[in-house]
């Protein structure tokens, strides 16, 4: 299990990295934390001609505040998210999600940008980006653009990124006050890809839900939102919500698939039930 030969470059600026990608003409891959790319290389499921290592680009790493949002540089390690005070103050949901990402050892290398841009449908960070309505800041020879997480994913491991386009940061907008966030999933072992799971953000005003965001992992070709369930929740009074019904509605808006680990039916059924249970408990104990 050895990677096919490739060239390696480690540019020290975003411009240089983008230039390498542009010259690679689609034969280059970006190496961020490597926790997914490295196995793909070892299995020869990825056989790029050039690996562009972005870990030496200082400006890609770090957490900051910008325009009412928390900006997380693409190569910020997942482990950093767990201890960063800015994250704890402004985007704690991200830390909640990161706790379920891989293991201690992989979080020490794995990056936020790497996971978000890869688009594994069962991964936590793409679904979190969706639930938090993050903006994905990218750079290419054509300049900078910001892509809404909801517009970013096109299929399993497939995004709107161009071959010469690099994710440079994630912008997580501040949530409204009184917003309760939840990260729940069913995984066989801690760190495994989920069989089903969701990230929820529910704003409660005067005893009623005023805003709801629900996004699912492992429930479709991409992370998926449940817009009907979100709409159905708004206006409902806490304590009087039929969470059975909402859970089923939310799960029905997904498009899960069968694989060796679970059937689509299972994912929908168990997904709806953990939604009911987790949201119920969270709203009760709020």
């Amino acid at each position, binding site marked *: *299990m050895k990677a*096919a030969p490739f060239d390696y470059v480690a540019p020290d600026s975003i411009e240089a990295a983008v230039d390498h990608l542009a010259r690679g003409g689609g034969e280059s891959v970006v190496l961020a934390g490597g926790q997914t790319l490295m196995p793909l290389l070892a299995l*020869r499921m990825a056989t790029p001609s050039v690996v562009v290592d972005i870990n030496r680009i200082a400006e890609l790493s770090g957490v900051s505040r910008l325009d009412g949002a928390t900006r997380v540089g693409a190569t910020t390690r997942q482990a950093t998210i767990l201890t960063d005070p800015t994250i704890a103050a402004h985007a704690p949901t991200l830390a909640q999600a990161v706790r379920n990402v891989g293991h201690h050892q992989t979080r020490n290398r794995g990056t936020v940008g790497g996971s978000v841009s890869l688009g594994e449908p069962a991964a936590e960070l793409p679904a979190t980006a969706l639930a938090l309505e993050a903006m994905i800041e990218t750079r290419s020879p054509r300049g900078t653009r910001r892509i809404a997480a909801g517009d970013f994913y096109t299929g399993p491991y497939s995004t709107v990124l161009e071959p010469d386009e690099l994710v440079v940061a994630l912008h997580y907008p501040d949530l409204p006050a009184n917003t309760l966030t939840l990260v729940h999933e069913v995984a066989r072992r801690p760190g*495994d890809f989920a*069989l089903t799971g969701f990230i929820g953000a529910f704003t409660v005003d005067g005893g009623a839900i005023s805003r709801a965001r629900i996004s699912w992992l492992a429930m479709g070709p991409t992370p998926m939102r449940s817009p009907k369930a979100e709409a159905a929740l708004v206006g409902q009074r806490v304590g009087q919500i039929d969470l059975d019904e909402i859970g089923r509605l939310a799960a029905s808006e997904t498009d899960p698939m069968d694989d*060796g680990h679970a059937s689509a039916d*299972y994912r929908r059924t168990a997904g709806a039930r953990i939604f009911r249970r987790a949201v119920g408990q969270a709203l009760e104990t709020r």
Partner: protein
Amino acid sequence: MNEMTQAARFVGQRVPRKEDRRLLTGNGAYTDDITVPGMLHAAFVRSYIARGTIKSINTDAAKALPGVHAVYVADDLRTLDIKFLQLYSSPTAPAPAMWPLADGRIAHVGEPVVIVLADSRALAEDGAALVEVDYESEEPVVTLEQARALTKAIHPDLGVKPADTMIVPSDDAMAETFAKAAHVVTGTIRHQRQAHSPMETRGVVAQPKGTGELTVWVSCQSPHMAARYLSEAFNLPAHSIRVIAKDVGGAFGLKVQLWREEVAAVAAALIANRPVKWIEDRLENLTSANQAREQEVTVKLALDADAKLLAADLEYHSNIGAFPHGIGANALGMMMFPGPYRLPRLSVNANAYFSNTCGEAAFRGPWMVESLARETMLDVAARQIGIDPLEIRRRNLITREEQPFTTCMGTVLNWVTPRETLELAVEKIDVAAFRAEQAKARTEGRYLGLGFATYVEPTTMNMGGVLSSEWAQVQVEPTGKVTAVISTHSQGHGTETTMAQVIADELGVPFNDVSVFEDDSSRGSFGAGAGGSRQAVAGGGAAIHAIAILKAKIKAIAAHLLNASADAVEIESGMIRVKGVEEMTTSLASLAATAYFETPRLPPGMEAGLTAQYRYSPPPFVFSNATHACVCEVDRDTGVVKILRWVASEDCGVMINPSVVEGQIAGGVTQGVGGVLMEQIRYDADGNPTAATFKDYLVPGIFDMPEIEYCHMITPADNPGGFKGIGEGGAIIGPPTIINAVADALSPFGVRTLDLPLSPPRLLALMDGAEAK
């Protein structure tokens, strides 16, 4: 360590392991750690079709790649006369023709077709990627159901029939027993395919010597067995082959014998006349190494009105893949079905079938289907009859008073304590308290379960052939230190430690003075090593016998030198004393120096030196036994099983090292739990394995097991030392224990949990398909 040096007895103590220091400091010597000058690295081109023929192979591009030294296909190995051996197969079952590389026909995905030798493994894989193989594909036989249909031959030379069959016929009397029985209980248990998944994969380094000799480092369960295998496979004199296996990273039956890849790598080394290393990668291990446990058994039990067993009938079917290590219909599994119970009659129809999948290998307790089937069906029976699963066991388990007890299959059980271990486990669990907790939990919609399972483990397994004997040589060196060479072999068992404990006690020397060697076939004599839970009994027994000879010699020398009676001589903590004459005390070291270097002082005619050896033929079976109990919770919303408690109540006779005993139990249980809850080798309809990485083949992690609670009973058997084997039991009894716990949790739903694995989707579907009562 000092405490250990001083202690009077080492057997029975939790002595820290001699192996641990090198392993903890990264200084172990596993096969991949071996580097030999001029060594080439091998990679295989493997078939991506499951069944068909090879039309052509083009190796030109691979051969032209810089760094690639040789590319061999099946025909390139013809200069050698290579035979494959079935070390444990049924004598009646014919084996398919085998060759290291696919020879025209393809019988499963992953079959090695071409071997590439290059300067590095990466280059060898580059070369392998350039080989073009043109196949003519045929529809494969993949599942057990397809294999049972016997529609086409997997091996044309063997025709269309089961690979092996074992029948124990029924008769009119038995039919009448079933017809008249107060209760007849039937059920079918299905076990999915499992992969051994040792953390160290298979691997070999073969170094041909210009002298016609061959040194082979190989990850194996016995260097002697590996050497014998190679000697017979290549028709080379045994003395010309030296096999070394210092540290082995787990084996569990997979490494009992060398198979196609190891043999191919040795063949390639001989032909290229260069050292060759092949280290199996995890992808290869999960898709090409032999696998285990794909079997189903339909059990029919007849019980009287008191729930006493009257008869059982088994119909067994097993998918043993294309090239199993041993071809058999699990005769031992059938023979052991009565377990520790009074079962008057048993009939069996057992069949094994070839298929276009990886071959079967023995896997820790290869006969475990007996406990799996019996213990799960006893719970089904108890539920059907309306009595407690504990009660059905109490009514049918044999007692001490009935022993020796001959089962209806002719197995003689003695010195076993199934009833006693059951009651110990019951007490440990506090069943009444659990039932109260369970009832309360159910009112909250939570489903807790408690399962028990009881078994006897046939250990030592002197079933003739290579398992007939083990060998030990114990030697007091001129320094007074003791070295032993034993035909045991550790793949994690810790035999360097446990054998040293036995030797230290028997000989009367400090534990730290004893060194045990078992890693080199050129050092010592043949023995089958690990396999059949035999090392304590067979290896320990050989050592005890050898020491008896050695002690007699030491006493004779001491008596002669000290002018005392041999009967009065005692050896203790490396000192030699004459009873009642303290001033005559001398050290073993000084006596040894005399034995080696002052030979005229020895008794007339006595052989110089202090070495003794013994080849011990152990009893056919030494039975250990246990009852395990498990408390689990099944999540009603997700079907996920959480194990809350595990009690292992066991009797393996005299424990040499309780930590090692508990370690063997825990490891086995965890593999068994993995087999029930998580692990599943899957193939798609085309015969492609779909759990090819550790992302998809799920072995238990640290959160999948609680800390095990142990109850130990010590009932020695009559073999030297009173030891009994314990290596496989956890993997045998773990599965029915957890299955029974899940079944108990789900009892309000009235469902059976006999189709494995008990994955979350399966359990959720079972609960959703029924309404809780």
